[in-house]
C-alpha cells in the first residue's frame, strides 16, 4: 500500500481512509455532503497526488501527441490545457486525460491514477517511430486541487496578481517560497478552480498554507467521496464507470473531443466507421421518480425489456435527488422514461439532460 506525501495530514484531520488502486486515500473528513457544498459555495481542497504525470518531450512531440489523442492538438496554444482521450485500435477508451502544452516540444499528460502504468506503457510502446522521449514522473509530483468560487481569491493570496492572468484551461509556472509549481485552471468539479503540480515533498507545505489562507472563506478539506458526487452532478465521465477499453467515446457522448477531420490518431478509422454504421449504445442521465439510489451495475428496463445498465449514481447533494448515468441501447435512446431495477423492484426514473447540476447565474 502506498501513500501520498499528504497522508499524515489526512490522518491528523481524522479522514476516513479508503484504498484506491493500492493507495491509501482520504474518502471524507467531515462528511461528503458538507465537503461537496463547500466546493459549490466557497472552496474545497483535494489531495489528488495519486493522479499520474507523464511527460512527452522532443522535436516530434506535437506530432506524436496528435497520433496518440483524439482531440485536435493544433488547436492547443502554449500554456493551454486540453481534455482529450487515448483510444485503442478498436476505438475503445484507454484513458481520458488532460494534456498541458508547454511548447511544441513538451507536453504533460495528467492521467487517471489507476491507469498510470498502463498509459505509460501504451504511450511508450507507440513512441518508437517518433523522435520523442516518454517519462512517467508521477512519483515526483504532489498534486493539490483547490476548487470552488473562492479558489482564485485564496490561491491569489499566495501567488499574487499573476494568477488572474491564468484563464480557464490555461496554466502557468509560479514560484512560491522557492518552490516551482505548475498552476492550471482546471478541475473535475464544475466549479472554477486550480490544479497545482509541485515537487512531492512540498505538497504538505502548500496544503497547510492554502488551508490557512482559505480559513476566512470557509475552505474545507475534501476527499474522494465529494470528488465523485461533484463529478457525477456535472456528468463528467469516470474511467471504469462511463468509459473503458470496450466503450467508444462517441457512445459516451464525448464526440466534441474526437476530431475525426483534424489529423490521424489511433482508432480514428474505427470511430468514423462506428458513426457511419450507427452507434449501438448511448450514455444518458436520469433522475429517480420513485425512491432509491441507482448504483453501478443496476439494470435499466422498460416494460420488461432490458435496455442497458447504470454506470454511476448517487444522491445528489446539490439537488437532493437521486441521479444516475447509464447506457441505453440506441433504439431506446430517445426514451424519456425508464425503470431502474433496485433490489428486485423496477423503479421509475425520468431521462434528463446533462449536466444534472447547472450553476445559478446571478
Amino acid at each position, binding site marked *: 500500500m502506498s501513500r501520498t506525501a499528504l497522508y499524515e495530514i489526512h490522518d491528523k484531520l481524522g479522514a*476516513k481512509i479508503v484504498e484506491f488502486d493500492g493507495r491509501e486515500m482520504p*474518502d*471524507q473528513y467531515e*462528511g*461528503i*455532503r458538507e465537503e461537496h457544498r463547500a466546493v459549490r459555495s466557497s472552496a474545497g481542497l483535494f489531495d489528488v497526488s495519486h493522479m499520474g504525470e507523464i511527460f512527452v518531450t522532443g522535436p516530434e512531440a506535437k506530432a506524436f501527441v496528435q497520433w496518440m489523442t483524439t482531440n485536435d492538438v493544433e488547436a492547443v496554444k502554449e500554456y493551454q490545457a486540453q481534455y482529450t482521450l487515448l483510444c485503442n485500435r478498436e476505438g475503445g477508451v484507454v484513458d481520458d486525460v488532460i494534456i498541458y502544452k508547454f511548447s511544441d516540444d513538451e507536453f504533460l499528460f495528467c492521467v487517471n491514477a489507476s491507469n498510470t502504468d498502463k498509459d505509460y506503457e501504451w504511450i511508450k510502446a507507440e513512441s518508437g517511430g517518433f523522435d520523442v522521449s516518454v517519462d512517467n514522473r508521477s512519483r515526483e509530483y504532489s498534486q493539490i486541487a483547490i476548487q470552488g468560487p473562492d479558489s482564485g481569491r485564496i490561491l491569489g493570496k499566495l501567488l499574487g496578481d499573476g494568477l488572474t492572468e491564468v484563464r480557464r484551461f490555461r496554466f502557468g509556472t509560479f514560484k512560491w517560497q522557492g518552490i516551482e509549481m505548475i498552476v492550471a485552471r482546471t478541475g473535475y468539479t464544475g466549479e472554477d478552480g486550480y490544479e497545482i503540480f509541485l515537487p512531492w515533498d512540498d505538497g504538505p507545505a502548500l496544503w497547510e498554507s492554502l488551508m490557512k489562507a482559505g480559513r476566512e472563506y470557509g475552505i474545507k478539506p475534501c476527499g474522494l*467521496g465529494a470528488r*465523485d*458526487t461533484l463529478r457525477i452532478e456535472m456528468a463528467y465521465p469516470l474511467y471504469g464507470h462511463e468509459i473503458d477499453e470496450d466503450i467508444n467515446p462517441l457512445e459516451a457522448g464525448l464526440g466534441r473531443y474526437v476530431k475525426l477531420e483534424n489529423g490521424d490518431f489511433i482508432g480514428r478509422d474505427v470511430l468514423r466507421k462506428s458513426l457511419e454504421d450507427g452507434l449501438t449504445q448511448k450514455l444518458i442521465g436520469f433522475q429517480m421518480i420513485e*425512491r*432509491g*439510489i441507482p*448504483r453501478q451495475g443496476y439494470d435499466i428496463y422498460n416494460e420488461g425489456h432490458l435496455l442497458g445498465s447504470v454506470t454511476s449514481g*448517487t*444522491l445528489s*447533494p446539490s439537488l437532493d435527488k*437521486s441521479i444516475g448515468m447509464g447506457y441505453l441501447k440506441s433504439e431506446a435512446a430517445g426514451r424519456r422514461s425508464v425503470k431502474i431495477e433496485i*433490489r428486485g423492484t423496477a423503479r421509475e426514473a425520468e431521462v434528463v439532460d446533462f449536466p444534472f447540476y447547472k450553476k445559478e447565474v446571478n
Partner: protein
Amino acid sequence: MVQIPDDLQYTSDHEWIRHEDDLIVIGITDYAQDALGEIVYIELPGEGDEITKGDPFGAVESTKAVSDVYAPVSGDVVEVNELLLDSPETINEDPYGEGWMIKVRPYDPAELDELMDFEEYTEHTEKESEE
C-alpha cells in the same frame, strides 16, 4: 472508539438485537454506521412482512455505498421505525436508540441462542478492524 453495549446480542453482519418481552428490536451497530459514513437513505420492510434468517430485510445507503441489512432470525415484522425514512441520519446519531429499525416476533426463539454476545462481537469487530 465505537460503542458496543453489553446487554445486546449481535450478528457478524453488524446488526444488534434487543429483547422486548416476546419481541426483538433490530438495528445496526455503531461500528456499522461508522463504517458507512453519513447515511442518506434507508429501505425497510412493511408491517406484517416476513423476514427470513440470513436474508436481507432492508438496506442502508451512504452517499457512496449501499449496504444490506440481514435478518438475525426469521419472524414477522410487527413495527417499523418510520422516522428513519425521512431522517436516516438518526442511525448515525443514535444507532442503539432512536435509530432502531424494526420490531419482530421470532418464529423460533431457539434461533436467538445462536447470536453473538457482547464479548464475541467485540472480538469480531477487533478482528475486522485489523484487516
